[in-house]
């Protein structure tokens, strides 16, 4: 049993809580215990880092301090949180000038960053610590014949020199993870492309047009669904398809976050949560359960 401080973030609990269900149900099955702590926003690697880097590092360090206090490594449910926390943790451990500046600010709230823990993404824990074989061994309802477009997303892999998870120009881990469930990971146009969420704060139409390119790539490859490991990308692609319909032809490609498909293939019943998706997922469920 390995125990982690569970960094759930903002998007999952307060926008797409059904993803939280899928993580809380599946991870203990692999011997992973999740502990809730009073974390605040990671904060957002786009908006907050862009606004003021020192504020970004300090708020991130405050979250890291909470996990340091209970001596647990962090597991993040969101790729944005992963980037913020792992980049901050790594830079603060290696840059004394930055650490001193951040600790000066943290001192005002009675905290100090020490650099005693590690930060991991949930997909990293599944791939590295659980392993593909053990994932495959848990599958009861294989996703046979399901064609999936995998979207690894940006903040799981970049900046690569710090995050060190997968090849940023040719990611393969998520492909292996969906194939462990019996599905087929299909090659498609714009597989590496950013979901566009980072541009949402300034121009919604451009952000949605970026997400639309991805959906078109997946549709042309005749994918049954798109699967991500990031809640922000999920929102862009699932809720986003409703917004896309204002600019482009209507699409209805089901979108999942990986732990949902993991749980479904393990025989779990996620009916309540799956009904909360914007794009109906029933066609693909019928394909799985027959």
């Amino acid at each position, binding site marked *: 049993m390995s125990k982690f401080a569970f960094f*759930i973030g*903002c*998007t999952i*609990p*307060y*926008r797409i*809580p*059904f993803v*939280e*269900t899928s993580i*809380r149900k599946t991870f203990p099955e692999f011997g992973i215990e999740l502990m*809730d*702590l*009073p974390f*605040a*926003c990671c*904060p*957002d*690697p*786009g*908006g*907050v*880092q*862009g*606004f*003021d*880097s*020192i*504020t970004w590092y*300090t*708020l991130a360090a*405050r979250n890291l301090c909470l996990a340091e206090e209970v001596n647990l490594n962090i597991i993040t449910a969101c790729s944005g949180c992963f980037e913020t926390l792992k980049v901050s943790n790594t830079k603060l451990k290696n840059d004394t000038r930055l650490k001193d500046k951040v600790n000066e*600010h*943290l001192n*005002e*709230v009675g*905290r100090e960053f020490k650099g005693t823990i590690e930060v991991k993404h949930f997909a990293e824990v599944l791939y590295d610590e659980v392993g593909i074989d053990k994932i495959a061994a848990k599958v009861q309802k294989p996703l046979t014949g399901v064609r999936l477009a995998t979207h690894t997303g*940006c903040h799981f892999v*970049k*900046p*690569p020199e710090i995050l060190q998870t997968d090849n*940023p*120009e040719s990611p393969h881990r998520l492909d292996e993870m969906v194939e462990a469930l019996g599905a087929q990971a299909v090659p498609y146009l714009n597989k*590496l492309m*950013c979901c*566009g969420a*980072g*541009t*949402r*704060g*300034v*121009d919604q139409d*451009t*952000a949605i*047009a*970026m997400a639309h*390119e991805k959906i078109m790539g997946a549709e042309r490859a005749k994918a049954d669904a798109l699967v991500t490991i990031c809640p922000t990308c999920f929102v862009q692609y699932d809720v986003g398809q409703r917004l896309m319909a204002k600019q482009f032809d209507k699409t209805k490609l089901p979108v999942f976050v990986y732990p949902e498909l993991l749980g479904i293939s393990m025989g779990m019943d996620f009916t*309540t*949560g799956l009904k*909360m998706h914007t794009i109906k997922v029933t066609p693909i469920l019928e394909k799985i359960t027959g």
Partner: protein
Amino acid sequence: MTESTELLEKFEELLEVTKLCYQCGTCAGGCPVFRQYPNFNPRRVMEKLLMKDFSEQIFDDQQIWYCSMCYTCSVRCPQGIDVGHVITEIKNLAVQMKNAPPGIVAELETIMETGVTAAISKGIMKRREQLELPELPPPNLDEIQKIFEVTGAEKYIKQIKEETS
């Protein structure tokens, strides 16, 4: 160190990093925003820095905020320039010069006031109940607000709102 010398020092650092750029355009070629919105062009941003040409008001301009922070440019730059990071630094400097889009300022304010970015609606709490999800331990808002105060973020938010109102 006064605020303005710190600003100047940051600015010189940026120009130093940019020196290696030979304007090949790999950053623009891979940029997912540029494909949809050609007014945002990372190569042009680098060019303006190289030429010290601020006639197009690089720091006053909302265009810089179109960057989606995907770091494709940083991964692909043949000169190893972390273009995405340069853009983040420009955003930081723009904020100190009282410039940021309303959407970004609103996000910062939400975090300062609630500790999270998402609005916690009654509807979402009902969904959490339906899903039988546990109550989450609330973040310490006093600490969050104090951090916004001591880093200067609270002051920047106020200044930008005064500037735009």
